[in-house]
C-alpha cells in the first residue's frame, strides 16, 4: 500500500471545488470519500482538515451549504458550487497548470546545451 500523505497546503480547496463541479452538490463525507478515492487512498482527509476548508470556501462565497435529505434518507449538509466558485475553479486550474508546467520544466532531466 502506498504511503499515505497529508493533503498539501493550498491544493485542498482546488480538489473540493473540482469534486463539486464533477459530482454536483455533495455532503462533506462524499467530498472526503471522492478525494480519497481519486488519490487512490494516498491522501487521508480527517475532519479537522476538511471542514475548516469547506467553511473557508463558504465564507469566500465559492460554495453554498444547505441541509438536505441524503440518498439513504439521512439529513446531511450539502455543499454546492456557486458561479463565483466556478470562476475560481477555472482560475485556480489555469494557475495550477502553469505552475505544474514550470516545475516540470525545472525538474526535467538536463539536456546538454549545444
Amino acid at each position, binding site marked *: 500500500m502506498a504511503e499515505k500523505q497529508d493533503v498539501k497546503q493550498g491544493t485542498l480547496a482546488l480538489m473540493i471545488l473540482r469534486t463539486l463541479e464533477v459530482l454536483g452538490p455533495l455532503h462533506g463525507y462524499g467530498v472526503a470519500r471522492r478525494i480519497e478515492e481519486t488519490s487512490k487512498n494516498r491522501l*487521508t482527509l*480527517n475532519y479537522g482538515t476538511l471542514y475548516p476548508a469547506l467553511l473557508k470556501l463558504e465564507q469566500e462565497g465559492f460554495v453554498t451549504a444547505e441541509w438536505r435529505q441524503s440518498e439513504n434518507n*439521512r439529513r446531511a449538509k450539502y455543499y454546492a458550487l456557486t458561479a463565483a466558485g466556478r470562476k475560481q475553479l477555472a482560475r485556480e486550474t489555469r494557475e495550477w497548470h502553469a505552475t505544474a508546467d514550470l516545475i516540470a520544466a525545472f525538474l526535467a532531466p538536463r539536456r546538454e546545451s549545444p
Partner: protein
Amino acid sequence: MRHVRAALARIAGVFTKHRADDDLRDELQAHLDMEITENIRRGLHPDVARRQALLASGGLTMAAEAVRDRRGLPWIESVAADMTYALRALRHSPAFTAVVVITLALGIGANTAIFSAVRGVLLKPLPHRDGDRLVYLRQSTDGPGGANVSFSVPEVRDFRNGAKSLGGIAEYSEWSHTLQSDNDAVRIDAGLVTGNFFAVMGLSPVLGRLTLPSDDGPGVPPVVVLTHEFWMKRFAGDSNIVGTQLRLDGASVTVIGVVQPAPFFPSRVDALLNMVVSPHHLSAQMVEARVHRMTEVIARLAPGASIEQARTEVAAVYARMQGEHKDAYDPGSHHRVAVIPFKDALGERARLTLWLLMGAAAFVMIISAASVANLTLMRGVRREHELVVRAALGAGARRLRRLLLVENLALTLMGATLGVMIAIGGVGLLTSLAARYSPRSNEIRLDVAALAFTLALSVAVALLLSFVASLPKEGTFASISAGGRRTTGSLRKHRLQRTLVVARIAVSVVLLAGAGLLTRTMIQLSEVSTGLRTEEVLTMPLSLLDPTRLSPEVDAANKALYDRMQREISALPGVIEVGLGSTMPLRGSSINFDVKVEGKALAAGQAVPQADFRTASPEYFRAAGIPLLKGREFSTTDLPGSARVAIINQTLADNFFAGEDPLGKRIAFTGEVLRFTPISGDWRTIVGVTGNTQDGGPDAGPRAVVFMPFAQEMAMLGGLVIRADSNVSALAAASTRTVRRIVPTVPIENVLTLAQIKDQSVAPRRLTAALIALFGILAVIIAAVGIAGVLAFSVSARTNEIGIRMSLGADRGTVQWMILREGGVLLAGGLAFGMVGAFFAARVIRGLLFGVAPHDPTTFIGVAVMMAAVGIVACWIPALRAARIDPAITMRSS
C-alpha cells in the same frame, strides 16, 4: 473582494456562535454515521466499524475547534473572554480594585493635568508661521529694574542695518489706553507696533487686514487690530467690527482687523495700534535719543541663518554701538544683549514652576505605580495556585501573560478615566496659576495630545505591572502535587517588593523635602514685614492723564479733580485719612531715574545710583501707614511755587548718607532719560526720611525711593490711599461711587486693600507650595500603606516560621523586634536614598525659595523625622500582629 467577504463572514460568525455550534456538531455526527454505515456495509462488525470511523476522523472535538477558529475571530474573542474574566475577577476583589483604581487615578490625573499645562505653555509649537524662527532680543543692565531695559529706536535701527541674520525686526511697545463707549470706560492693554510687526511675527488676520508698512510714520490714519481674545470678549465676535471706530483716550481709531489667536509678549494685550496714535512715539526724542528705551524687539531669523549666527552678529553690532556712543552705555551698569528663541521667552517665567510640578507629578506617578505593582504582586502570590492550574491545563505563558495584561489594562484604564475627571478640575486651577507666569496660559487644554499622553501612560503602567509578575513554567505540576499549598513566594518577587518599598519611601522623602522648603518659603514670605503700620488701607489707582496731552493746564485741571475726590471721600463715614500719590503703597514704581547728591562725586567705575520716583500728598504717609523716621512730612505749603523738597527712604539714606544726617542735604534726578519726562532735574532739599516698605512683593530687594510733593510734580500717575477706622474693604463700593460721580469716563480698576495686594503677590507661590505639599502628603500616605502592606504580607507568609520560632522559645518581644527590624531596614534605606535625592532636588528649585537655604537643616531633619515616625507606625501594626501569632494554631493548620 473575497477577503472582504470572508472577513465580514467571520465577524458575523462571532455573533451566530451558538447556532453554528449545533449545526457543526450535527454535520460532523452525520459524517461519522455515514462512515460507520459504509464500514458495516463493507462487512465489519458494528463495534469495529465505529472504532475505525472514529480513528479516521482524527478527533471530533479537535475538528470542531479547528472549524471554530476559522469561523469567528478567535483572537478577539479570546481577548474579550479575557476581559470578561478580568472584570469578573476584579469584581470579586472590590477592595483591591478600588484601592488600585484610586491610586492610579491620583497619579494619572495629576500627570494629565500638569502635562497639559506644560504642553500648552512650554512645548506646543507657536501658532505663528515658522514660530521657531522668531527670536526675542533683550537688553539688560546690572541693578534693580535692569533685567529688561528694552531698546531705543536708534539701537533697533543699528541692528536692522547691521545684523543681516535677522530677516525682519518688529518693534513693539506696551501702551495702556482707556477705551470709551457710550455706557462705560475700560482700561485696555495695547501694543504700539511697527507696520511690519505682523509680517515678522507670521500672524494672519481672521477678519479684515493687519498693519502694513504703509501704516508707519506721521500723517496716516490711526488704526487698531484687535486680538482674537478681546474681540470675542468685548465684541462677542462681531463679524461687522472691521471699519468701525473706537474711542481710545478721546481719539478715534479705525478697526482694520482681528488677528488670529496668538500669545503676545511680554504680556497679553487687547489690541495693537500703529504708532501714529501716540505723538510721543513719532517725536524726535523717541526716534533720535539712544537712551530713550521703550521698544521691545522681536525678530525673525533670515532664511538659512542660525540662532548662533544671529547671536554672534548681534553681539558684534552691539559692541560697535557701545564703542560709538559711550555716553549711552554707562560702564558700571554692564549693558548686554541676549538673543532668545521667542518660545523660550514666552515660557521663561513659568518654566521652573511648571517643570517642578511636572517632576512632582511624575514622582507621584512612580509612587502610585510602585504601590499598585506591590498590590498586584501580593495578589499574584495569592493567585499563583490559579495560574499554575491554568498552566497545567495547557495555557501557554503568552496566554497567561495576556490574561494579566488585559486585567492590568482594565485597571489602568479605569484609573485613567477617573484620573481624567480629576484632571478636568485640575486644569482650571493650573490655568489660573499659569496666567500669572505666561501669556500662553489660555493655550492650556485637555486636548487630544494630553489624552494621548494619558493613554500612553496607562498602557505603559499596565505593561509594567504585567511584566513584574512572574508566571509559572509551562506544564508545572509540582505545585499542584504539593497540594496547592501556598509557599512564601519566590525570593525574586520578595526582593522586588522590598525595592519598590524603598523606592517609594525615597520618592516620598524627596517630595516632602520639596514641600517643606516651599512651605517654609511661604512662611518666610508672609513674615516679611511690609514696612507699613497696618494693612487695613484701601488703594484706588486712578489715572486721569491722557498720555498724549501733557500740558500744565490739563495737569492743573486733573489735580483739582484729585483734590475733589480726596475731599469727598474724606467725608464718607468711617474714613480717617485720604492721601494722594503717584503709586500705591506696596506697588513698585515704574518710574526711576539716576540720582545725584550735592557735593558727592561718584567713584570711577561705580554704577550710577538710581532711585524710584514717587509723589505723595501731605496725608499720604499717614494714610498708607508709612513710618516717618526723621524730619517732617510734606505740608500743604509745599506748592508749585515754593521751595522744592523731597522725602527719601531709609535705603537711599543708607546709600548716600551713612553716618550723616540727610536732612537739609540736596538731591536731584539726573541722566539722559530725564529729558524725555516732565520731571525737572532741579535740586531738592531733603526734609524727611521714611522707613523702607516692601514695594513690588515681599521678596523684592530694597529699593531707593525719592518722594516728591504731589502738588509740585505733574500728575502722570495718581491714586487714592484711604484709611478707615474698621473694615476698610466695605468702603470700596462707596468710594468707587464717589469717584465715578466725579470722573464718569475714567475706568476704576484694582480697588484693593493693602492686605489684598500683599496676598496677590504671594498667591501663585502659595498655590505651587500647596500642590507640592498635597503631592507630598499623598506620597507619604501611599508609602506608609505600602510598607505596612509589605510587612503584613511578609508576616502572613512567614506565619509558619514564626510559629516554629515561638514554639522553640522565642517570646513575643523577639518576634515583634524581628518584624520591626525588617521594616526598619527598608525605612532606613528609603530615607538614605530620599535624602540624597532631596539634596539634588533642592538645588534644582533653588530659584523658587526665599529666606530658606536649599539645604535647610530644619526642613531636612523635620522631613526625616516625620517620615521615620510614619514609617515606624506603619511597621508596628504588622509587628504587633506577628507577636500575636498563636504557635499552636499555626502548627496545626499546616
